[in-house]
C-alpha cells in the first residue's frame, strides 16, 4: 500500500486530504509544517508528498528543494498545493522540482486523479 506524506499548516485542509486519501485506500502520514515534514522524511519512507506551498517557517518551495537535494528521497513525487493561482507560483514550484500542482480550493476528486497519476508514473502501486 502506497504511503503519502501530507504537509499543510491548516489542520482542516490536512484532515480533508488525509480523509480522501484514506478513503481511496492509501496510507497517510501528516506534518503541520515544513520542519516537521523534513523530520518525518528522515525517519520513515513515503511514496509521495502532498505539499502546501505557503507555510510559515520552511515553506513548500524550500521543503521540495531539500527533497531534491537529498539523494535517498530525491526521486519522490511531490504534488504542490498552492492557494495562489498565479503562474509565477506554479513556475517556482515546478522549478524546484515539484511533480505536479493543484490550486486551492481543489476538488478532492481532482487531487486523487493527480496523486494516482504521479504514483503510476513513479512505478508505485496505488
Amino acid at each position, binding site marked *: 500500500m502506497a504511503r503519502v506524506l501530507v504537509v499543510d499548516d491548516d489542520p482542516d*485542509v490536512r484532515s*480533508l486530504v488525509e*480523509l*480522501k486519501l484514506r478513503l481511496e485506500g492509501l496510507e497517510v502520514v501528516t506534518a503541520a509544517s515544513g520542519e516537521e515534514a523534513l523530520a518525518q522524511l528522515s525517519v520513515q519512507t513515503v511514496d509521495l508528498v502532498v505539499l502546501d506551498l505557503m507555510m510559515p517557517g520552511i515553506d513548500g518551495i524550500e521543503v521540495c528543494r531539500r527533497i531534491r537535494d537529498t539523494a535517498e528521497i530525491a526521486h519522490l513525487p511531490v504534488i504542490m498545493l498552492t*492557494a*495562489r493561482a498565479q503562474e509565477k507560483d506554479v513556475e517556482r514550484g515546478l522549478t524546484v522540482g515539484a511533480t505536479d500542482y493543484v490550486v486551492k*480550493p481543489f476538488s*478532492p*476528486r481532482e487531487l486523487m486523479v493527480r496523486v494516482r497519476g504521479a504514483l503510476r508514473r513513479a512505478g508505485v502501486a496505488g
Partner: protein
Amino acid sequence: MADGWGVGQLHDQAQAGFADALAADASPLDAVILREIVAVQREYVSHGDPGTMWRLLLDAVLRTTESSYGFIGEVDLTESALPRFETRAMRWLGSDGEPVPPHPDIGLLISQVIATGEPLVLPSTVRLGDGAIESGRFGPIDGFLGLPLTSSERLVGVMGVTAPARPYRRELAAALQPLLSACASIVEAIQSTRARDRAMVALEDTAAFLTALFDSAPDGLLVVDEAGTVVRSNPAARSMLGVEPVDRHVIDFVSDRQRRAIEMRLARLVRSGDPLDEPLMIEVVRADGRAFPAETSIAPIRRGGGGHLIAMFRDVTDRIEAQRAVARAAEILDAAPDFIAWGTIDGRLHYLNRGGRRMAGLSRVEPVHERNLADLCPPWAARHLREVVLPAVAEEGTWAGESAVRGADGEEVPVSLAAFTIAGDGHRPYLAVVARDLTDRLAVEEMKDALMSNVSHELRTPLTSIIGYLELMIEGSFGPINDEQAEALDIVLRNGDRLLELINEILQLARLERDRDEPRLPVVLSEVIERVREAVAVRAADAGVELTVDVPDEVLVVAGDPHQLEMAISNLATNGVKFTPEGGRVTLRAFRQDDVAVVEVEDTGIGIPPDDLDRVFDRFFRATNARSRQIQGTGLGLAIVDAVARNHGGTVSIVSEPGRGTTVTLTLSLSGADQVVRGGG
C-alpha cells in the same frame, strides 16, 4: 543797485573829463568837443538808450571833423580768437538824401585800426597801398579818419569818418581824445550792462530749471531746516504724505517705532555734514495714519552756515511685496520634497531646489550650472530623457510620466516626472521639471500586492475545506444522504463556487491593474481561442449551446500577455454560453482589419436592455434581465475584459438586441513576432 552802477560811474567820468578839458586852456575845437560830450552823456544818462547814444556820438564826431560819412561800431575781442566788429550807427547818405554805398575798402581800414589800436589818418583823397596802408582793391578813398575807442587799455570800439570838408589833421585825432574816452566809457558801460543782463537771465533760467526739477521729481523731496522743520516740499512728497508738510516737523511723518532712531541719525547728519552712505528704510506715516515703507536718502545741503537737509524718499511697498513674494516662492521651492529644476530646453540646469539636491545626492551649495538633467539620471532614464522627454517638451511643451533619478549612493530613485516649458529670457522658453519620489508609493503598491496575495491565500484555504468536505459528503463518503440533503448540499456547493469565482475575479482585476507594464510577448490569437473553446466546450454542451470557432488561415499575432488575453476571451465565451438559451449558438471569431486584429464573440442569447448597455463594463454591474432570470455572476467579467483591452492598448465594444443576441468586439494591435515591445507608458 547794479542798474545804477554803469550810469553813475559814467557820469563821474564825464565830469572829470570836462574838468580836465577846461583846465587845459581849451581851444575853440576843444570847446565844441566838450559840448558834444556833455550832450551825449546827458542824453545817455537821462534815457539810457544805447541806440540813440550811438547816433548822437556819431553825429558829434561827424560835426567836429566836418565829415560827410561815418560809422561807429563795437569791437569784441574777448569771445573768440577773431575780433568781431559790429556796426552800431552809420551815416552814409549822400547830399541828395539817398544812401551812398560805403567805400568797399572801409573794412580793410577798420581792420587796420583794430590791429594797431592807433588812430589812422588819411588826410584827403588817397589811393590805398601807399606806405603803411595795405593795398586796396578799389578806387581811391576820399580821406579817412579811423579812431579806436579804448577803455582801461582795452579796445572796445572803432569810429571811422570819411569825405571831410577839409583834409584831416593828425592833431584832430588828438583833440578828439576826450570825446573818444567818453565814448569808450559809455561802450564799456553798455557792454557790462549787457553781460550782467545775460548773467541774470542765465541765473533765472537755472533757478527755473532747478525748481522744475524739484517739482517734477517722482520721488518725494523735502528740504528741512536745522530744527527739523520742513521748509520746502515737492508735489510728489505732498501726494505721498497726503498733506502739505511745510512748517511741520519732519519727524511727525516717521512711525513711532523708528522715531527715536531717525532723530538721532538726523542729528548726526547735521553735525557731520556728510550724506548718508546708503538709503534708510523708513516707515513713513501719512497724514491719514496709513503707513508705507520708504527708501529715503538724506544729504546735508551745503550753503553758507545753514544746517539744511534734503530728504528724498520713495514708496517701495510694491518692491517689498515683490521681494517677499519671491522670497516666499524660493522658500516653497526649497521646502518642497520634490525635485524641482529649471534650465535650458536642452536639459542644461540653471537651478535645482533643495529637495532635488537631496534626491540626487548633491550638496546644498554645489553649483548645477555645468550639469545636464541627464547627468542626474541612471543611464536608461538619461537616454529616455534625451530621446523622448526633451523632444516631446520641445514640440508639445509638456511631458509627464515615470522616470528615475540617480540617488546619492548610485541607487535608482523612481520618480513621476512632469516636464514643461516656462517663459524664459527673451524669446527662448525654459525647461521646468518637477519630479516626485515614487519609492514610498511603489512600496505601498508592493504592500498592496502582498496583501492581495495573502487575502487570496486566506480566503482560498477555508474554501478548500468547505468545498472539499461538501464534495465528500455529496459523494456519500460519510454515508448515504437523502434527496433533500443532496439538494441542500448542492446549493451550498454552488455558492461556494460562486464565492470562489468572485475571489478569483477580484484578484484578476487587481492583478490587471498592477501588471499594466508587464513585458509583451507575441501571442497567436488562434491558439488562445482554441484553448478557450476547449475550456468552455463542456459547459456549452451541458447548456445545449452550439460553440463554433471561426478563425482565418492567416496567423494573427498580437503583442501581449497570453494569460490575460485568454482570461478576457474566456470571460466573453462563458458569458455567451451563460446568457444563451438551449438550442442557441455562440461563435468565437477572429479576423484582420487593416493593422488591427479583431476578436468577436457573438451569441444568440437574451441580449442586454439598451438602458443597461452603457454600464455593462462597470465593476459589479449586472444587467437587469440577468438578475431577474437568476443567472449567476459577479458582474466583474466584462470589467476584466475592459481592463485587459486597456492593458493591450486595444478597445472593447458591445452591440446587443434584447431577445436576439449580443456581440462583443475586442480590437488588438497586430504585431510581428519580432516586434515584441514593452508596454505601458
